[in-house]
């Protein structure tokens, strides 16, 4: 800060002298003061200098947009600009004067909605502008040098350099490839079915795939966001409430969900429950950061979570703390089940004149008629229960506990019991709190106390998250049992009571007019589960039995789709198996985040046998995925976008529209425009008679025509939805609008509980026993705890009775006695913001340094433009690096100190990474698997080179598995589709996109599909190298012990 000579003189006359510039940390200069200051505590003579800070704060303009990555929160932010460059962002308080605020019919006023949804926008939104300018941005379209349309040379992916091409060239290459496909289904788009780029961004990719006749890959199921237990029990994708409902709870159980890190804008709603008399109990293997907000932490053996819920169920059942009326009205608990074959008894079997449904299951699914059911009235006589007779329509007062022989219409008799009797018998016998203590390591007394308190609470809510979803059996078993507990306690369909999952940006459902855009004129892409492509096409394929946990190879497999080998279970015909000749990902760092990373990259991406001839990546940043692409397409950030887009989220009822606030800094194009240009080229290349639609271009005309306006697509979508039909696009230009739902706050199943509408199952009720053949076959028809297929020291894939006396050879013989979890970091959204400077410093915790090693930073910059860059460990990290948290005991066992490097390995791969000593991890000595924590989303540049394996794939997902749960691969599971409520689909106008929607069965992307269960893996960990540097460690400080016990000041006590 130096003054010009003129200023100096002016200042000198005015009474203060200029500062002279020093350098480094040592130099200062002194000049005699000119001004007298008497008592600066009381007053100060010259405050003109304060203008400096006014100038720093000043801005030329302010404009707002919405930050909406895959954290699912969707937050409007004001960006302040100087010279057209955003210099900072600030949160918006929508009700305040001058702020973009809600208009009608939405808005906050109608439910006296408090000023509580704001502020929104976390530290990531506040560095969105830094992210926009960071070196990892892709600046122009590029084609991999080794690739050509006829010779894809897949082996070069990830290694070849790129060369710049024009947009026209890039578009032409893509369209040409698509036009030459012999089977359109081989065009695959993975645009992450997320609610954050719905129309003018990657949503356009879905539209393109639909009209082309291609396939679309999903994200919600692949990344283990989908909680199948929700669908199995209720037929509904995921039961979640608006966050505003959370604080009404009296008691919260939160299991395997680090909510304070991943729901930043809305987490206060949960914390507020404790200010209002609520209590919170956390169930985690480690002292998760959320545990500090819990009144009680039950430390649990990972993978044993279903037993916890079963133990709680045991207490509720045996102490009769349940609400029998609720159970009768809304669940299958009073329905009779045949003990001989495990099927629900049908009315036509019990009553002679009762009309049966169609004989074969397929027709039953088509007609949505699976027959009617039977219960016993108080008088012991059977009554018919149809799927419509739920709630107060439940006939008579059916008995909850029945175990008897029943005479059938044909004169024969069959032993029957109710679903409740069935579950009760199993739970009472096998899941008393003492046994549960053996399974889970949670003290029986505390489990009991928790169960009693939860039952006594008026409103109890239960959260699970991806910590649970990522375990093979917890994934459905725990979820089903939680619904069971909540049903026993009447904790469904009320504000402050329910069972929620909130993993993933899936609430496209709330924009229910969306099919109009992505399935125009009824065209729809084939849904395809990525695990199938990665597992079964390519170089070495995965063992289809092993990945299903079917080590005994009992499952019947058949070839299907493009697979020549038997890879699919029978009765899973609705599951697409299509070989992706063209794979295009948008807004998705597929290869960084995929499970079984080494296999996917070596055997699928880089292998010619895959038949994947063109891999296109559209992204903002030169990610690991982009480095492996054949064609890389740069897109603008939310700050630079040219076309507005809309977004919704799963825990708030608002619809928001973003728009660009600055000019694009690179030669980027928004996904929608790219798709439009491809569509235009397709019309040129594909003769009309061969097209799937009359004109591809027509479907993207608003992007291409002179007078086109993409807002028309948005308006069409809004007009076709019940939640949005009264909203105009113009309204969204002024701020968020409130979606029109049954209730505010949105409470799932409100109508089921209060208006007697059926659930989306065969029975119309929440189902605990499942009669589908696949469930019966696998022994998973009922609520049970089953040990993991890999992540357990005990017998794999077994119930506790057998498992406890067995040993998992992987654990005992091979010595893989650790597992790692990958919780969602707060400084990144998955891998987004992975290279943004401030975020990287903080995400790297103890190893995040503001003293960036300049040559390290250069290395990072080089890496992005030319993937030939080597990754070398420097003396000082460039801003930050990845680390794995390890318990001090486990580290000591392998001679590892804080900062040393370790190798984590298993049969699938290994990685080298720096270790951080962390007391909050579950140690190996707790009796089972030692816990390692790697925060999710590191880029390969954050990991050091593995000198013993220089050509290997570098990533934190190399040890994880692509598990496929055969229980989720059946054509028989009844559910509702993503969009539409079959209960009222005839009531809504024909213009509504889901008018006439019916219940479905079988595969449905993001609703009923195999889910990822990535963390159910065992690894071993060993020392790799000593630390080359490390920061301070407070634990090593002599003072820390007395600091912690409060005796540091004043010397030794």
């Amino acid at each position, binding site marked *: 800060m130096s003054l010009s000579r003129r200023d100096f003189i002016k200042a000198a006359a005015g009474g203060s002298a200029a500062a002279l510039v020093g*350098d480094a940390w040592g130099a200062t200069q002194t000049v005699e003061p000119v001004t007298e200051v008497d*008592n600066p505590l009381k007053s100060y003579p010259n405050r003109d200098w304060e203008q400096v800070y006014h100038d720093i704060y000043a801005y030329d303009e302010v404009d707002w947009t919405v930050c909406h990555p895959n954290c699912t929160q969707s937050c409007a932010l004001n960006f302040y600009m100087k010279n057209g460059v955003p210099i900072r962002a600030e949160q918006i308080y929508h009700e305040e004067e001058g702020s973009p605020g809600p208009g009608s019919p939405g808005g906050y006023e109608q*439910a006296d909605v*408090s000023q509580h949804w704001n502020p929104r*926008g976390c530290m990531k939104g506040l560095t969105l502008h830094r992210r926009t300018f960071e070196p990892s941005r892709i600046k122009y379209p590029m084609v991999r040098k080794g690739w050509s349309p006829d010779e894809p040379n897949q082996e070069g992916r990830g290694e070849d350099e790129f060369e710049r091409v024009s947009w026209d060239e890039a578009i032409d290459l893509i369209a040409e490839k698509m036009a030459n496909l012999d089977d359109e289904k081989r065009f695959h788009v993975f645009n992450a079915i997320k609610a954050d780029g719905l129309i003018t961004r990657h949503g356009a990719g879905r539209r393109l795939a639909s009209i082309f006749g291609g396939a679309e890959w999903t994200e919600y199921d692949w990344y283990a966001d989908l909680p199948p237990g929700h669908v199995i029990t209720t037929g509904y994708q995921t039961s979640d409430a608006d966050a505003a409902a959370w604080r009404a709870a009296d008691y919260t159980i939160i299991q395997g969900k680090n909510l304070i890190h991943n729901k930043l804008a809305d987490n206060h709603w949960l914390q507020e429950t404790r200010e209002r008399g609520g209590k919170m109990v956390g169930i985690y293997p480690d*002292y998760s950061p959320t545990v*500090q907000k819990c*009144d009680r932490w039950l430390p649990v053996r990972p993978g044993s979570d279903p037993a916890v819920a079963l133990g709680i169920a045991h207490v509720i059942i045996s102490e009769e703390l349940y609400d029998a009326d609720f159970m009768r009205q809304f669940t299958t608990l009073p329905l009779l089940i045949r003990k001989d074959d495990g099927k629900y008894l049908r009315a036509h079997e019990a009553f002679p004149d009762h009309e049966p449904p169609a004989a074969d299951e397929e027709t039953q699914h088509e007609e949505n008629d699976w027959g009617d059911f039977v219960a016993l009235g108080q008088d012991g006589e059977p009554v018919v229960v149809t799927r419509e007779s739920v709630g107060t329509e439940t006939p008579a007062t059916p008995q909850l506990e029945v175990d008897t022989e029943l005479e059938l219409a044909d004169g024969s008799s069959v032993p029957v019991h109710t679903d409740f009797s069935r579950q009760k018998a199993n739970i009472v016998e096998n899941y008393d709190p003492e046994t549960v203590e053996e399974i889970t390591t949670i003290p029986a007394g505390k489990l009991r106390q928790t169960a009693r308190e939860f039952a006594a609470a008026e409103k109890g809510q239960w959260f699970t998250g991806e910590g649970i979803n990522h375990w093979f059996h917890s994934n459905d078993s725990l979820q089903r049992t939680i619904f069971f507990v909540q049903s026993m306690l009447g904790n469904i369909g009320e504000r402050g009571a329910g069972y929620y999952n909130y993993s993933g940006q899936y609430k496209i459902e709330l924009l229910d007019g969306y099919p109009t855009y992505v399935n125009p004129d009824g065209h729809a892409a084939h849904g395809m589960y990525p695990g199938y492509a990665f597992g079964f096409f390519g170089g070495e394929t995965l063992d289809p039995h092993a990945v299903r946990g079917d080590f005994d190879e009992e499952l019947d497999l058949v070839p299907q789709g493009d697979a020549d080998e038997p890879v699919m279970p029978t009765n899973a015909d609705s599951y697409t198996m299509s070989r992706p000749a063209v794979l295009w990902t948008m807004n998705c760092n597929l290869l960084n985040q995929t499970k079984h990373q080494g296999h996917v990259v070596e055997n699928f991406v880089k292998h010619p046998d895959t038949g994947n001839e063109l891999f296109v990546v559209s992204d903002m940043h030169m990610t690991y995925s982009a480095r492996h692409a054949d064609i890389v397409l740069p897109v603008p950030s939310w700050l630079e976008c040219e076309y507005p887009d809309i977004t919704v989220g799963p825990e708030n009822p608002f619809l928001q529209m973003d728009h660009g606030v600055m000019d694009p800094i690179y030669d980027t194009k928004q996904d929608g425009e790219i798709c439009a240009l491809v569509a235009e080229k397709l019309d040129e290349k594909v003769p009309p008679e061969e097209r799937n639609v009359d004109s591809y271009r027509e479907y993207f005309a608003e992007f291409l025509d002179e007078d086109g306006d993409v807002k028309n697509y948005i308006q069409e979508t809004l007009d076709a939805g019940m939640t949005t039909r009264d909203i105009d696009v113009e309204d969204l230009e002024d701020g968020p609008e409130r979606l029109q739902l049954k209730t505010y706050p949105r409470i799932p199943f409100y*109508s089921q509980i209060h208006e007697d509408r059926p659930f989306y199952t065969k029975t119309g009720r929440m189902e605990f026993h499942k009669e589908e053949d696949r469930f019966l076959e696998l022994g998973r028809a009922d609520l049970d705890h089953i040990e993991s297929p890999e992540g357990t020291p005990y017998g794999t894939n077994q119930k506790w009775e057998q498992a406890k006396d067995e040993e998992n050879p992987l654990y005992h013989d091979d010595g893989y006695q650790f597992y790692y979890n990958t919780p969602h970091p707060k400084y990144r959204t998955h891998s987004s913001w992975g290279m943004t400077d401030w975020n990287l410093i903080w995400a790297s915790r103890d190893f995040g340094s503001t003293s960036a090693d300049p040559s390290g930073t250069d290395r990072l910059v080089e890496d992005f433009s030319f993937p030939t860059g080597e990754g070398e460990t420097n003396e000082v990290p460039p801003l930050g690096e990845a680390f794995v948290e390890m318990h001090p005991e486990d580290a000591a066992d392998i001679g590892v100190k804080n900062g040393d490097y370790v190798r984590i390995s298993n049969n699938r791969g290994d990685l080298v990474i720096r270790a951080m000593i962390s007391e909050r991890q579950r140690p190996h000595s707790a009796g089972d698997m030692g816990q390692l924590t790697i925060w999710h989303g590191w880029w390969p540049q954050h990991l050091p080179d593995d000198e013993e394996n220089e050509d290997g794939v570098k990533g934190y997902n190399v040890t994880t598995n692509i598990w496929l749960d055969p229980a989720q691969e059946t054509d028989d599971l009844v559910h509702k589709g993503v969009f539409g409520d079959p209960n009222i689909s005839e009531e809504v106008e024909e213009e509504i996109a889901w008018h006439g929607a019916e219940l479905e069965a079988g595969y449905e992307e993001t609703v009923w599909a195999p889910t990822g269960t990535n963390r159910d893996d065992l690894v071993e960990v060993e020392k790799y190298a000593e630390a080359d540097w490390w920061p301070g460690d407070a634990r090593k400080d002599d003072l820390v012990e007395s600091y912690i016990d409060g005796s540091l000041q004043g010397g030794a006590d």
Partner: protein
Amino acid sequence: MAKTYNPQLGREHSYPYEHREEARDWHWGMVINTNRCINCNTCTFACKSTWTSGKGEEFMWWMNVETEPYGGYPMGWDMRLLDDIGADQTVFEAAEDGEQVRGYVAREEEWEYPALGDDQAHGEYPTGDVVESDPSNDEYHDMWQFYLPRLCNHCKNPACLAACPRKAIYKREEDGIVLLDQERCRGYRKCVKACPYHKPMYNPETGISEKPVGCFPRIEDGNVPRCVSSCIGKTRLHGNINRGPDAGPAGGKKSAASGRSPINYLVKSDEKVALPLYPQFGTRPQVFYMPPYHVPPEFLTQMFTPNTDEKRNDWPGSTYEESVKIVQQRAREPSHHVLGILQLFGATTRLIETYRVTETRVKGWDPDGKKVVDIPFDEGLEVREGEQWTNQP
């Protein structure tokens, strides 16, 4: 050497300058509820992106959140000073000859890892056991961590001001904000050495020290500081700490409430729920913390009370540890009135001067007497009538 009475300590001690005769009508102050803090560091980034993203400021985080007990920015800042001063000594009384304040200059390396100790917990893994807290039953987490957001406290006995040999640091008359004159500073770094909280920082590019400015350009516009308005955990409330029960209606407007500001109530009423950070240093910090109620009071007594055997101030309880426990319980189970004030946290960017809590609503008025908050304790449940509505669209 002047003497000053320090109400946080309940006694007098020395301070190099004389205080004003009368307290300011308006004084910058803040309450932070650690129980709601999630360590997202949005406040940290808000401050840095507004004020310290220039050259030489790379290491500067005027606002930072550190995880206790292992975090610290700069490293170990509080441990060193606690070890250095006596049981009942302010930094002024402990000053060495020729100095006004006892302190130290942190080394470059100690500033470089702002996220050190982030999210680390302390304790033995509870194998075969559980971890619980219930302040009303004297139970606290055996294994614990909590988040401590830290910023310049705009102290009433500023150590930085006391230490500057050029008197280049002053306290504003109208609002008590402590500023470091960027034109008068010569980079002696006495302030950097003196501040026990280490918030004045030296800029090696310019050769001048800088300190947090209390967001005064925003305050002058009637808005709360960035760290407060950006807090998505709704952990903070800012306003006029000096406004007591006898003050008239905000802005002189009859329609506005009179009396205490909401933060004054939380800090100075007989329902006190917020405590200053390390009051024993003697600087009279004006940022107050609702302490984490799951953390053992032994640790918190050293951090949030004068930490002497004899209790001299007017806080509840007969020992300082008791004060902590009482305040923890009040935070765990707030009264209706305190819960009402908690609704004001994060409700507006405007400064809230006065407030009113009724049975069902909470209102707030800005210093001009304009109503800026009017919210219900509980939102209504809105149910749409009609067959065509659903929560599963």
